[in-house]
């Protein structure tokens, strides 16, 4: 049998560089294509308003609280009347006035009504009712403004209305409740009576609507949602029907290097809140800072925790006063609430 195949007479030494060159060319073409398709919005643009900023008002440690000072505070929410609700590791919810004065507290360790294992977040509905998510018990409890138990919903699992670590909560103007389901990588929508309605987003690393360990959700004006998609290192917007409506701070190279520069993106943004006029405030915990973005997602300002412990991501969650002038953030690592004031054009003054 005769072999008619041409014999490659190129010396082996010459073939190796050619293969390497081809591989290099392929990589370059792939990267260029990926940048063209996905990488166009990986930086947060800077806004024209440069004089906006944060000013530290103070730190609230809860020295006068009946059950002891704040211990690893995590969840935070502001009611329509301006009262503040905070959850902490003492398995309780603390209510404070706008000046930080103690108003009420409730909760203790346990699995019954009004009891908690790990109250991760708080949300206040327009009627003043308070929702609390329990990270360990996979349930949400609803209380009156004063802390009287009303109802509960959710259980452990991956099905409809089931959670694995409900990390974040929000209530919209119509009373619907949204839950950031950390280990199931999705957002749930419930009615005010705890009836499950739908799932928003899906597990994933790339693309609109793909969520990776979401830690917080905020119900913005006109039924729009803003999600702290913490481990995709970005924020995601959803329209009132739950359809993806854009990403903020997204960067192609989410694997490495992680963004750390003030205007280049987030490192585990775990909390988000929107003030009047659409100004966004982000608890960029991996960068130990609070970031202010315009309604269009442009970078406005930041405030960094002085001498922050580099080994613990903080601040975790964030809330805005009804007038939009005061920002509260839970500093888990330092057992306190950070109180900031807005200065500059974004205050509207």
């Amino acid at each position: 049998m005769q072999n008619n195949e041409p014999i490659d007479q190129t010396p082996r030494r010459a073939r190796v560089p050619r293969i390497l060159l081809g591989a290099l060319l392929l990589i370059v073409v792939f990267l260029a294509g990926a940048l063209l398709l996905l990488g166009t919005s990986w930086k947060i643009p800077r806004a024209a308003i440069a004089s906006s900023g944060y000013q530290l008002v103070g730190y609230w440690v809860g020295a006068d609280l009946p059950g002891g000072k704040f211990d690893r505070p995590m969840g935070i929410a502001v009611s329509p009347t301006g009262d503040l609700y905070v959850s902490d590791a003492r398995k309780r919810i603390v209510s404070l006035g706008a000046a930080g004065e103690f108003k009420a507290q409730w909760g203790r360790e346990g699995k019954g009504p009004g009891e908690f294992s790990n109250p991760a977040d708080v949300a206040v509905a327009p009627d003043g009712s308070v929702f609390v998510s329990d990270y360990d018990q996979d349930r949400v409890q609803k209380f009156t403004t004063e802390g009287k138990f009303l109802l509960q919903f959710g259980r452990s699992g991956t099905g409809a209305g089931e959670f694995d670590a409900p990390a974040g909560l929000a209530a919209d103007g119509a009373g619907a409740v949204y839950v950031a389901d950390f280990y199931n990588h999705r957002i749930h929508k419930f009615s005010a009576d705890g009836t499950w309605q739908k799932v928003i987003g899906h597990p994933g690393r790339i693309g609109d609507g793909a969520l990776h360990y979401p830690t917080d959700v905020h119900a913005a004006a006109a039924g729009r949602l803003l999600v702290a998609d913490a481990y995709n290192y970005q924020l995601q917007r959803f329209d009132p029907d739950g359809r993806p409506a854009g990403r903020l701070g997204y960067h192609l190279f989410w694997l490495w290097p992680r963004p750390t520069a003030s205007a280049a993106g987030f490192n585990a943004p775990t909390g988000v809140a929107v003030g009047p006029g659409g100004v966004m405030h982000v608890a960029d915990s991996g960068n130990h800072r609070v970031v202010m973005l315009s309604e269009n997602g442009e970078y406005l300002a930041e405030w960094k925790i002085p001498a922050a412990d580099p080994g613990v991501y903080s601040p975790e969650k964030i809330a805005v006063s009804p007038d939009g002038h005061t920002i509260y953030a839970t500093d888990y690592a330092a057992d306190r609430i950070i109180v900031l004031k807005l200065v500059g054009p974004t205050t509207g003054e």
Partner: protein
Amino acid sequence: MNINILTAKLLLTLFSLCLATGMAFGQSGPAKVFIEVKGLACPFCVQGLEKHLKKLDAVAGVRTSLKKGEAVLDLRSGRTVDEKELRQAVKKAGFTAGRIRFEEGPATATAEKSVKGGEK
């Protein structure tokens, strides 16, 4: 005679109690487990790790040190846990377990409060 029988019964009861107590407290086996976990910095992740480890039947309590990058498990009296189970629980929490070390000693059922990151 009655007194002698009563004394004997009392001694027997005491002996049984001592034996039972000795069995409970003197039993040795892995009482603590140390799991090396890298990349612990985020409180949500740490709490998730503790949540998944606490789900194991043999685990009475978990505390995590962000500084050391380590989870320390207290096991229930007389219970043991499989290394494979531990690695799976850590994986479910989104991490990869490094070195796992079992510490022999009298079993305990004390659940200790988890410490915050940085061990301030």
